[in-house]
């Protein structure tokens, strides 16, 4: 009896050691991609795998902060990630990003000029544009009978328990700052405290702070008003025609999500190949069509159905967007933002 236990244990140990040392046992190169949830057409990944005979290891995150921490501290190495403007700025500052070899990305020429050479990454040395959009209010015409044109409506007690906010600190604090008429990149402690008070005042009216669930909740008419990113609004309106998207008159946030190559990735060339692939017009069009967000790839527009290209939500004219701001990295003020957000969330 004892001998057989010994025997099985040794076999087991040998097997474990064997498994650990050979890894997954496949010779295919793997590409680790780290993207927002619900932010790509899954078939596109399969097609890339097939065409380049590689394996794509695809992971998702819910907020920029979340992504930043796991790249910086997670002990994981990603080859491609999709951060937004202010986060790209921070990652460049902290030396977390690899310079991109533009010669390897000829499809960069498909990107519209206005999305290139932006403040957070002059000359696009570190990032290649993917999607862009605005932040606004989506509301259900049957449930809201006031005119929705201002952030103020999110503080209207009439809609208590029917308001959804984004579970994302930058975006929610920005809404309060804009309501008060301040810059959403405020670096003034007093202004930020005021924004905090506003959000705490609003909290009893808020139904929930959500991420991607917002789509199900608004389409299912569980709530009347929600703060959303424009692309999600497109996807929601597609499924429920009672919904309408508005950019408040106080101004809003214009944002850009770009593709970057984090340092520590093992496959820089393949990563560049992937970024180039994503910017093929037909591939960019498929992603755009699938997720509803607005592409930065002007050649992709030819492949998209009319109703998307002409959509005022996805592709608003400049005068419709009104006064916009692009997020900047708060740098040393980040701690204040973190603190404020925590206090709002912990408030009962």
């Amino acid at each position, binding site marked *: 009896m004892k001998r057989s*236990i*010994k025997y099985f*244990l040794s076999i087991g*140990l040998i097997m474990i050691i064997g498994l650990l040392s050979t890894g997954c046992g496949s010779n295919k190169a793997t590409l680790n991609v780290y993207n927002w949830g619900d932010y790509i057409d899954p078939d596109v990944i399969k097609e890339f795998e097939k065409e380049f005979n590689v394996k794509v290891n695809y992971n998702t995150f819910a*907020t920029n*902060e*979340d992504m*930043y*921490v*796991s790249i*910086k*501290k997670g002990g994981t190495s990603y080859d491609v990630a999709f951060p937004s403007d202010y986060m790209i700025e921070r990652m460049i500052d902290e030396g977390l990003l690899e310079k991109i070899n533009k010669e390897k990305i000829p499809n960069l020429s498909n990107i519209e000029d206005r999305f290139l050479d932006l403040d957070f990454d002059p000359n696009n040395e570190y990032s290649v544009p993917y999607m862009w959009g605005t932040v606004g209010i989506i509301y259900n015409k049957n449930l809201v009978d006031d005119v929705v044109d201002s952030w103020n409506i999110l503080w209207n007690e009439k809609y208590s*328990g029917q308001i959804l906010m984004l*579970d994302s*600190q930058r975006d929610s604090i920005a809404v309060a700052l804009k309501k008060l008429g301040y810059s959403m990149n405020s670096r003034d402690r007093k202004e930020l405290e005021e924004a905090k008070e506003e959000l705490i005042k609003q*909290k009893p009216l*808020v*139904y*929930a*702070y*959500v991420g991607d*669930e917002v789509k199900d*909740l608004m389409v*299912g*008419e*569980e*709530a009347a008003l929600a703060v959303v990113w424009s692309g999600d609004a497109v996807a929601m309106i597609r499924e429920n025609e009672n919904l309408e998207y508005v950019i408040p008159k106080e101004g809003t946030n214009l944002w850009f999500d770009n593709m970057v190559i984090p340092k520590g990735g093992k496959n820089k060339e393949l990563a560049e190949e992937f970024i180039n692939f994503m910017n093929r017009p037909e591939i960019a069009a498929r992603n755009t069509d699938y997720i509803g967000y607005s592409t930065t790839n002007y050649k992709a527009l030819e492949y998209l159905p009319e109703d998307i290209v002409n959509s005022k939500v996805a592709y608003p004219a400049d005068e419709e967007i009104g006064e916009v701001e692009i997020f900047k990295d708060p740098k040393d003020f980040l701690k204040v933002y*973190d603190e404020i957000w*925590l*206090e709002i*969330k*912990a408030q*009962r």
Partner: protein
Amino acid sequence: MRMKWTSYPYILWMIIFIVVPLALILLFSITTGEEGGIKNLQFTLDNFKRFLDPKYLDVLWISISLALKSTAITLLLGYPMAMIIAREKPKRRNIMILLFVIPMWMNFLLRTYAWLTLLGKNGLINYIVIKLGFKPLNLIYNDLAVLLGMVYNFLPFMVLPIYSVLIKIDKSLIEAAEDLGANKIKVFSRVTFPLSIPGIITGITMVFMPAVSTFVISRLLGGGQYMLIGNLVEQQFLWVGDWHFGSAISIIMMAFILLTMAITAKFDSQKGEGGRLW
């Protein structure tokens, strides 16, 4: 007793996956230093001091009171349930236990998500309520929903240990009590209940621990408005990236759990027939 060599793999396992991580959490909780590995860490107790701020103590208090409430409810619901199951004939009893355990084969997250569609404003329950001619109820994103999620998810952890103690109680003890003239209430209060205390203690620990540290239930059913201690730890690790403060909170939470275990262990001085689950 000399340890057999067969125990070495387990010792190795415990060192790698229990001792080392715990030591790291402890190390992080009493140090500070942005990055650059262990060399750059500096000793400090600021992480613990920071926790004494009322806003964090509030979070701790809310977590503990919610966990206590859910433990009490699972006990009140679970004990009679365990008794009912334990009284059945073995064959039916096994089927009932199986039915109880099967939902646990499903992913915990999935089961919690399912409640979203049940409790939502246009969910199944409200659908029935409206059909019956009442106004829709506010069922989700509040204290009650979080509590419900905890009770629902952790109920088996209360029922199973109590059940396993109850079926091991020697029937002749109960018969003896009845022969001596004790009525049903007396038999329960003087024989069955005292003998089942080890199971209750195990149940309480096994419900209280996950309930006080949960972050998924409070986020999904609380709609992100409920900052419990688990959410605070999650936030520090995943979003803010302050592993030192996050570790300090974890240590404080562990201290609380150890404290409750010590208290419950005191009640457990009778040392029953070894009916503990582990």
